[in-house]
């Protein structure tokens, strides 16, 4: 009964606060909220696919956010607030994401969202967050359109797709000394965008693009394209596309006796690559927006804590979800302090999130620029040194 009463009270408080969003209401409601023993509740939602094909990554986002929230519980208790995580399942589906976003918007006690995994869900859902002024931080969405729309609520801690291609080009040309590069792409928004970004950067860096060919998603026979590759005899192949085609291209290229290394984007960051190409995978490279957290000592310690807590190893995005939540809580805390100990309106929190500068996270440092991209976001280059996933991290490229 007590909990119910408290919740109702918080609801009323939140309604009043959101309704006017001014100091006068804050002082008016302070009398009633003091009586709660556990303090006022601050809810933060996560949205990620908790069911379906990418539920492993989606759950990792939820757990990472949850871990950060639990780490900050005491801090907020001192301020007189209790934290609560509200996980939503967007099923990797834009329609479901938008429907959830409406629910989140309607719940006035939710002040922020951590999510989504898929850019395709982030883009329509963030329009709803913008309507309700709820700050959003994505630990995983990389499409340029996510932040290019310049919404006030949208932020992300990972790198953009148009940074990944050039980063891969830099590694291919400067580190591996590639001179004659063949580019293959799958004609999708992702694959072509990445391949184009790679091609432009590679040409600027002085490499020759000896061919630029397209393939069709779902095809199994890439011998035609590979015949062209063979006749051009490149010393490096870049592939913009998904792992199902990427794995087959690697395999069929090796079958033909093409030995040039193949490189792709974060869509090849999947154990599916190894399943398809088997031993032929060795030497294949991919860029990714997520770091190997176990490379540093504090990161290793964090990963051990994660494993101890949840009984499973962190996924690539776990640490980014952790950092996203930490950034969010930092901003909430700061705006409470600025507001004289009261929880301010969502607009204030939204602006406080965007104002984040030089935040030290577990996986990445965070500073949002004026459209919500992280200035410290990096791209990491991995290489399959054996037929096992994941590959080993061989380089990191910062802006």
């Amino acid at each position, binding site marked *: 009964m007590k909990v119910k009463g408290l919740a109702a009270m918080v609801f009323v408080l939140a309604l009043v606060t959101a309704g006017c969003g001014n100091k006068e209401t804050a002082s008016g409601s302070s009398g009633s909220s003091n009586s709660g023993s556990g303090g006022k509740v601050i809810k933060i939602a996560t949205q990620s696919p908790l069911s379906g*094909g990418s539920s492993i990554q989606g759950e990792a986002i939820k757990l990472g956010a949850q871990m950060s929230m639990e780490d900050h519980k005491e801090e907020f208790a001192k301020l007189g607030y209790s934290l609560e995580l509200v996980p939503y399942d967007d099923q990797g589906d834009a329609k479901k994401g938008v429907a959830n976003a409406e629910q989140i918007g309607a719940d006035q006690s939710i002040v922020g969202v951590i999510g989504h995994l898929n850019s395709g869900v982030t883009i329509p859902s963030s329009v709803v967050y913008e309507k309700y002024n709820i700050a959003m931080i994505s630990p995983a969405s990389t499409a340029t359109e996510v932040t290019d729309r310049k919404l006030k609520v949208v932020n992300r801690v990972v790198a953009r797709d148009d940074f990944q291609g050039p980063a891969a080009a830099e590694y291919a040309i400067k580190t591996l000394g590639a001179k004659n590069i063949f580019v293959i792409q799958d*004609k999708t928004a992702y694959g072509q965008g990445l391949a184009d970004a790679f091609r432009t950067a590679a040409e600027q860096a002085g490499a020759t693009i000896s*061919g*630029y*060919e*397209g*393939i*069709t998603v*779902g*095809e*199994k*026979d890439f*011998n*035609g*394209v590979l*015949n*062209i590759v*063979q*006749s051009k005899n490149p010393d490096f192949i870049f592939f913009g596309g998904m792992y*199902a085609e990427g*794995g*087959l291209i690697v*395999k*069929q290229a090796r*079958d*033909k*006796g093409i030995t040039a290394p193949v490189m792709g984007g974060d869509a090849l960051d999947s154990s*599916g690559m190894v*399943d*398809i190409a*088997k031993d032929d995978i060795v030497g294949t490279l991919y860029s990714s927006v997520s770091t190997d957290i176990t490379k540093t000592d504090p990161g290793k310690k964090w990963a051990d804590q994660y494993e101890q807590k949840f009984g499973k190893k962190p996924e690539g995005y776990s640490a980014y979800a952790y950092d996203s939540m930490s950034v969010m809580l930092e901003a909430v805390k700061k705006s409470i302090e600025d507001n004289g100990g009261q929880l301010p309106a969502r607009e204030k929190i939204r602006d406080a999130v965007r104002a984040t500068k030089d935040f030290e996270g577990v996986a990445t440092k965070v500073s949002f620029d004026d459209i919500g991209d992280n200035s410290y976001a990096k791209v990491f280059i991995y290489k399959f040194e054996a037929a096992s996933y994941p590959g080993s991290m061989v380089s990191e490229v910062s802006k």
Partner: protein
Amino acid sequence: MISSILQTLPQVLIDGLALGAIYAVVALGYTMVYGILELINFAHGEIFMTGAFVGTTVLFMFQSFGWLGGLPAWFSYLLIILIAMMVTGSLGVGIERVAYRPLRKAPKLISLISAFGVSFVLQDVVRFIAQLKTGNYIVTSDSLFSGRMTLDTSAISSVFGNASIKANTIIILIVAVLLMAGLDIFVNRTKWGVAMRAVAQDRETASLMSINVNKIVVLTFFIGSALGGATGVLFAQQYGTIDPYIGFILGMKAFTAAVLGGIGNIRGAMFGGIVIGILEMFASSNLGILTHGSFGAEYKDVFAFMILIIVLIFKPEGLFGRAVKEKV
């Protein structure tokens, strides 16, 4: 330009031949059913896909029982193909019984829609089963024959480059030729074949000649689907990776091959398959060169379907078919 096309030509021909052989055997299934029932069995592409999955499953079972080491590779290959043929053959018969026979008297369009229904059901059933265990429906199988040899085609003339051929490609060609030759002999030389041709010509008259039409239809579906299933195994072995959606576009191209050769004509289907396969491979290897990069390899499919349209407009009976005369 010409020199670079010639350079890759031997390799293009070999890759095209392997693909064409697959199209040809799948096209046989379309052509046989059409020849007998004048029904385009659009579920045939999915039967092919099911064959690929059945073959791969059997291969996995062999591996987990540890039989592969004990048996010679060609024998297990043969066994896998036979099992896949039996399963898809029965599947084809089942589909005929459930989805086509009740509609045999209905307008043609109804059975066509029914065929599409069956193909979607098959896609999703296979997808459901395939992802039961791992949540991933893209299945990768091991190749039984992984050898590769280089053909010294540059010795013929220096304008050609060397070509390489996989052991598996040779097996595809051999099996495809065996299947096609076997079918040709069956249809032209056996009593069952005569009955089949009789039903194809005139169902009613054939039934008056004490031919059990239903039996012949079932037999046709069994043979056509078994051939499709066998090709599925060949496909899975050649390309290594299969998913529940491989049947659709491949089925469409095989259907085009059947139309090109003259639908209902078995030798025409074989010819059409090989032509489409080589043409597609040639297009995907050389389109960029021929058009100076304005069209890339991704436009290769346009060719198969352009042929379909051209054939339908100018020679609807196909290259080998005879124009159907009004029955009097």
